[in-house]
């Protein structure tokens, strides 16, 4: 029985038991692209229905008792026109105790618009009242502001010409609208000219695309509506190009422990499933992802984006620019550029930034990940990092005092921040370079630094892990052969995992940490497909034959001839040279690769796959499709 048939069977079976999460719990979907547009659309709509039905049936609460519904369930019930009276009562109840911030704002906007013609006037009035009485906190991150200002924009449009005293902000509808519009255009200009601050987020993609979808559907201003739709395409194209079989690969501005080791375990996977159908959704359909479903049928996944995600004929190298979201202090630049590389092949992907300090808590700098037929529960990654825990790093990004935040963040959803064995975060003492499927990470950690060592993550799902006398450690993940070269002595520790952002205890999920307690340090990783070699021994022999010179004193530096025959020379705080030529980062584009291309400052993205092309031009607010 082929996988596609199994998937269809499960979809049909699931219709009988809508409280289950068939796509989440069933076998993995086929990764074969669906080329028939009618069938592709039908499958997309079926996936949307699966989410809506599950949410309307009570979702995680497993109840359709209106008194227990949350706003996501109510949204789905409104779409299905189910128990609208009960929904109205529940909205009134929920609005009597409103939340305070963007995560409350966008769900209420969703209900306010979806329920316009379906909920009782009292229910709608209760939402409006809450927007008068309860001060809304704008938050302090880029995703907070996207949610906040899109929500404010849409509510100001929904209730125009109302006075300042009728809004929590003390500003009139027109003032709120103008402020929100101004920020959103600013943010879109920034993202489309020098890149996102929260680039390739594993989870926060939802916090962007959900409100953007609201904007694309509900904005009255045609220009803002268009902007919403175009940003959706922009972000989904970026997602498509950086996934392998639906799983997001490479570096992330912000992630967490779960997504760092189990790359599938991310809201990005929910969107891959929904849009491309090529990986299972995460449990609960991404949680917030439920708010995308009510309008999802209005979104046509552009074929060119679908094909980028699903129809890979060969290896592809994508080099992009992004930016650090913001350094308030202790930095010469407010928002330094980030240079990303992602190299994706059939069996594995290698991705990196250049290292240095990015997000102080949640950045994921580089890794090698491999394809798994079923990615659920698989820790399909290998990387190293310096586990930075720094007052100054936190001060640089947050309006905080030196001491409290280190412990504080561990109680605020980032439990591992001050753990010496953590596996998430960036460090100013790390420099990374990449050429195709070779990564060199060098570390120069000042004496006295908290956690004066580096951690290398070795997954439970690696097989044939071999500590070779040459100094290389060989392993196999899926159909990828991996060679990991620590540049300083090390020992092994058990990897213990925080299973959620609020976990109090850590669990042994398998896996190990290579801990190297040396200030001058480094890691080289070389990946290859198993199919390139006769056997594992041949791979090991090939790696051992590669010329390698390195020194750690006074500054870590490496000269290495990669498996691809490239002579790589890299030293800490120096630019990588490949075959004697230094990489010129000043020439990097916003996007450059076979699928996505954009010049810095252009506000224009060309998306291509084969003969298909879509151009998103924010200068003219036009979308141009053509078959080349």
């Amino acid at each position, binding site marked *: 029985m082929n996988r596609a048939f199994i998937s269809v069977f499960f979809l049909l079976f699931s219709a009988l038991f809508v409280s289950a999460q068939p796509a989440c719990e069933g076998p993995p979907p086929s990764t074969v692209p669906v080329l028939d547009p009618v069938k592709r659309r039908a499958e997309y709509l079926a996936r949307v229905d699966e989410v809506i039905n599950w949410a309307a049936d009570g979702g995680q609460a497993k109840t359709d008792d209106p008194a227990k519904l949350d706003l996501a369930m109510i949204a789905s019930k409104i779409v299905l026109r189910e128990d609208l009276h009960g929904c109205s009562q529940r909205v009134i109840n929920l609005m009597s105790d409103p939340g305070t*911030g963007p995560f409350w704002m966008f769900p209420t906007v969703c209900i306010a618009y979806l329920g316009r013609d379906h909920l009782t006037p009292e229910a709608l009035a209760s939402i409006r009242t809450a927007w008068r009485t309860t001060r809304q906190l704008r938050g302090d991150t880029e995703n907070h*502001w996207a949610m906040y200002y899109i929500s404010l924009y849409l509510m100001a449009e929904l209730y125009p010409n109302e006075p300042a*005293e009728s809004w929590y902000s003390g500003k009139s509808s027109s003032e709120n609208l103008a402020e929100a519009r101004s920020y959103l255009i600013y943010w879109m200009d920034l993202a489309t000219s020098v890149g996102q601050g929260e680039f390739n987020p594993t989870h926060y993609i939802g916090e962007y695309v959900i409100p953007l979808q609201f904007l694309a559907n509900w904005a009255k201003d045609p220009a803002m509506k268009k902007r919403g739709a175009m940003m959706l395409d922009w972000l989904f194209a970026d997602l498509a190009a950086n996934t392998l079989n639906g799983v997001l690969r490479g570096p992330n501005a912000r992630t967490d422990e779960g997504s760092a080791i189990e790359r599938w375990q991310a809201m990005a996977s929910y969107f891959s499933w929904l849009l491309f159908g090529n990986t299972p959704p995460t449990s609960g359909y991404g949680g917030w992802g439920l708010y995308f479903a009510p309008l999802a049928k209005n979104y046509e996944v552009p074929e060119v984006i679908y094909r980028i995600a699903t129809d890979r004929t060969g290896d592809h190298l994508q080099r992009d620019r992004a930016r650090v979201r913001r350094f308030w202090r202790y930095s010469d*630049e407010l928002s330094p550029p980030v240079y990303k590389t992602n190299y994706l092949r059939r069996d594995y992907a290698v991705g990196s930034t250049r290292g240095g300090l990015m997000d102080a808590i949640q950045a994921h700098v580089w890794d090698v990940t491999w394809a798994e037929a079923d990615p659920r529960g698989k820790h399909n990654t290998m990387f190293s990092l310096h586990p930075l825990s720094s007052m100054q790093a936190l001060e640089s990004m947050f309006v905080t005092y030196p*001491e409290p935040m280190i412990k504080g963040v561990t109680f605020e959803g980032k439990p591992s921040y001050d753990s010496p064995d953590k596996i998430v975060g960036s460090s100013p003492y790390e420099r990374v370079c990449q050429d195709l499927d070779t990564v060199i990470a060098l570390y120069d950690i000042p004496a006295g630094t908290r956690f004066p060592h580096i951690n290398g993550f070795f997954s439970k799902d690696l097989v044939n892990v071999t500590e070779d006398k040459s100094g290389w450690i060989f392993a196999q993940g899926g159909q990828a052969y991996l060679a990991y070269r620590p540049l300083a002595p090390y020992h092994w520790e058990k990897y213990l995992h925080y299973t959620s952002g609020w976990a109090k205890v850590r669990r042994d999920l398998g896996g190990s940490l290579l801990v190297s307690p040396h200030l001058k340090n480094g890691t080289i990783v070389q990946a290859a497909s198993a199919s390139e070699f006769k056997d594992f021994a041949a791979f090991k022999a090939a790696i051992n034959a590669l010329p390698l010179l390195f020194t750690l004193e006074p500054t870590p530096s490496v000269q290495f001839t990669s498996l691809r025959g490239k002579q790589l020379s890299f030293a800490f705080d120096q630019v990588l040279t490949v075959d004697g030529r230094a990489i010129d980062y000043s020439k990097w584009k916003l996007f450059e690769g076979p699928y996505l291309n954009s010049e810095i400052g252009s506000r224009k993205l060309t998306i291509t796959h084969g003969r298909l092309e879509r151009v998103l031009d924010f200068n003219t607010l036009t979308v141009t499709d053509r078959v080349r």
Partner: protein
Amino acid sequence: MIKKTPAFILLVLLAIGTLAAAEPAYDFFVCANINRNYVIGSKIVTTNGVFQRDAAGEWKHLGYNDTGISAVAFDPRDRNVIYTSALNGLWRSLDGGKLWRMCNDWDMTESRDVAVDPNAPDHVYLALPDGVAFSSDRAQTLVRRENGLPARGKYTQVVQVDRTRAGRVLAGCELGVYLTEDAALHWRQVLPTKEMVFDIQQSPHDPLVWLAVTQSVGAWRSLDGGLSWKQLAAVPTTHPLYNITFDVTNPQRLAIGSWGLGALTSEDGGQTWTDRNAGLPAPHRVWRVGVDPVGQLYASVVAETLFVSSDFGRTWKPDSLAGSVVNKFLIQPKSAH
């Protein structure tokens, strides 16, 4: 009757005068957040924001429940005009806290401090993580005024207006103390530092005396209105110092709050300093210290409560506001309104 009237009036005036002398000339406020582990997206389940100490010694909540209020200021002409510095930026109420307006646009955020010029009360200064904003119209409009501040290094934690002269303001920034004498049109550095200046205070006893505390270079004093500074040698430089305060009842008494050092006091004008953590819960993570109009010393101990001492730190007893972190103690001359 006629002869008796002046005596009666004199008695009444004497009685009023006696009462007035007994009543402090200041009001006392705190900005307190009682929001353990609050993160954006979670529900605020506690009362946060501005509290005023009333005559009975109780803290009375004033205005909005906002978890991120870092500072409060009042129009000296009208106590109903209130400014708060918060996560969203600057909020203003013109009616004693019933209605509020978010004064800034999206280009300002996470303000750290707010101050009103007592000699130009329409003028409002806002400390921002990326500079300073100014308003000449009671915050109806805000503009950035950063000429003379460094392009990088202008994270501003505190703004303090010199009460003796309109437009004279000191700002505590990442790279030192900066002074303007023309309502923020021009700034100049008067004390360089490599890391944050966390607090600046003007003496209520001598307007030429100013104190500043820093992240890594201890405490500093100016005796010439902030033009020149000298380090207070007896204050440790081992830990960041979060704030410093005078005592309006005694010019010799000073106090410092510090996460790492707890509460420190001086009773000789800053020549010597004493650890006053005995009686405070350990670890002595003091977020702020303050002194009320009758000379009681307060210490906000993180994740504990507010503590009060009637003997300037020798003994402590818990006050209310359990679980709070006080971001600001504000002592304010009593308003006619």
